[in-house]
């Protein structure tokens, strides 16, 4: 489909996902690569990349932990207690990556798991009905390299 010359641009999100998988994050090099492959100016690539929260413009830990702070997670006592617990356990603030590069902690909006709140997401997997104990188990598992 080549209407309005939109053919290349329409591949951009998929290309950014691929680049992120290969490079680990959308480094300037990755942005350049996508730009060259799709023949879209780097500024335009960056414009889209910077809009979406799943595109990472800085290096990420091996495991990206996203804690939901949506209303339903908050109402059942999740959100802040989980964030604070993870923050002290991993010794990082939300948005930071641990020194060993194993974990990145993120606070996110609704994960569409309100019926099984509190919810967190690790890499591409959803974990529901979280407690401090189940977080301990999960972190141990992730440290061993599997989950």
């Amino acid at each position: 489909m080549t209407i309005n010359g939109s053919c290349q641009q329409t591949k951009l999100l998929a290309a950014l996902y691929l680049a992120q998988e290969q490079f680990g994050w959308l480094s300037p090099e990755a942005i350049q690569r996508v730009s060259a492959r799709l023949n879209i100016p780097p500024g335009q690539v960056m414009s889209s990349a910077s809009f979406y929260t799943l595109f990472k413009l800085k290096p990420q830990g091996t495991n990206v932990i996203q804690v939901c702070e949506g209303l339903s997670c908050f109402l059942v006592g999740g959100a802040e207690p989980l964030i604070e617990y993870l923050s002290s356990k991993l010794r990082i603030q939300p948005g930071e990556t641990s020194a060993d590069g194993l974990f990145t902690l993120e606070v996110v909006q609704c994960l569409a798991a309100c019926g099984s709140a509190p919810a967190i997401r690790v890499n591409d997997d959803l974990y529901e009905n979280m407690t401090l104990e189940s977080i301990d188990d999960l972190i141990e598992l992730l440290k061993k390299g599997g989950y």
Partner: protein
Amino acid sequence: MINRVLSETGVVFQPVLTKNINLEGSERIQVYLDSGGYLAAKKALAMEPAEVVNQVKRSGLRGRGGAGFPTGVKWGFMPGDASHQKVIVVNTDEGEPGTFKDREIVEQDPHQVIEGVLIAAYAVGASRAYVYIRGEFFLGVKRWIKAIADAYEFGFLGENILGSGFSLDMSVHRGAGAYICGEETAMLESLEGKRGTPRLKPPYPATKGLFGLPTLVQNIETLACIPHIIRLGPEWFAKIGTDESTGPKIFSVSGNVRNPGNFELPMGTPLREIIDVYAGGVPGGKKIKAVIPGGVSTPILPARALDVRMCFEDLAAAGSALGTGAIIVIDETHCMVEVARRVSKFFAHESCGFCTPCRIGSRRIFEILSRMENGAGRPGDIELLLELAEGIDGHTFCPMGSALVNPVRSAIKHFREEFEHHLTHKTCLVPKITEWEKEL
């Protein structure tokens, strides 16, 4: 998992949209075929496209994504001439806090939706379908790629479907984390690889949508209704629910209830029945303070207003909206300033930044509610919030502006004393949840 409970009256509603969801391997095409899947598509492809549109009109089906626009009427807006290529976009960018019904359908029963899309595409003459799935729904994306491949293999997609001469191609497009892309024109921008900023309407997508082509954008739950309407007839569908809100609806219930989850029930089921009977009521003997009936962009209802049926017309009359049918129950231990603050943080984070009233306004509302919550509120802050709401509502490209002021205005309207208490006493009228728990 979808929870199914007997109603108090002993009348069991037979689930329609979620009937297969608890079956082993419900996402697989064979399971769907064994349950009578794709028979509706065969039936529809033997009908005139105009008759399919007519049946959907007669069913009374209204969009399940939030706005509640009559689906058949929307299909009628698509140009009838065959000279244009036409497109269907399946909206699965579920992100409205409190809503988790679409994720269930995406992951557990993709073929029901593929069949719905096939029928819709045939009815409006679309030859290309894009399924826009929220980026976080990784399992859903994986299952859809497989489901679409299977549908091609079984001849439900591709060239000359079931010998009808009708052809349809379908592909999955993964979103990348932006609530605003659930707005239909923002979704089109995102599909084109751009930033997801809504377009000025008109032109509406039916005239000029994806790549400038006539486009039908439809929520996934709406499309899931289509095969059932064709199979069992529009009259059957219209008999479920109320006069103005027909058919089954998946209600997501979360917050302070014993048994949160998705419940498929007839439109018009009383809100109180859903909370008390299906979701098991509030735990710990606490009382309900407020309920958000349709996701956080719908106005908050106080406890005294809960005797309302969950349908478009009754919730509008009650000063709120059905939205996505996502019911969030808030018990008496929660401060409404904090509830409003949290919701406003969501909107401040998710504003695409294009329209100034929404970009700046959402941020200012969040800041003011934060300082109130933290005991640093200033005299006149309540009036300032209402003034900001006035300046945002209706002054943006997309409905997000109105959405973000709804919870703030309704919280002030029904719980003004809590806001005033925060200004005069610098603290919550109710003990904070942590303090409350310590007392127990």
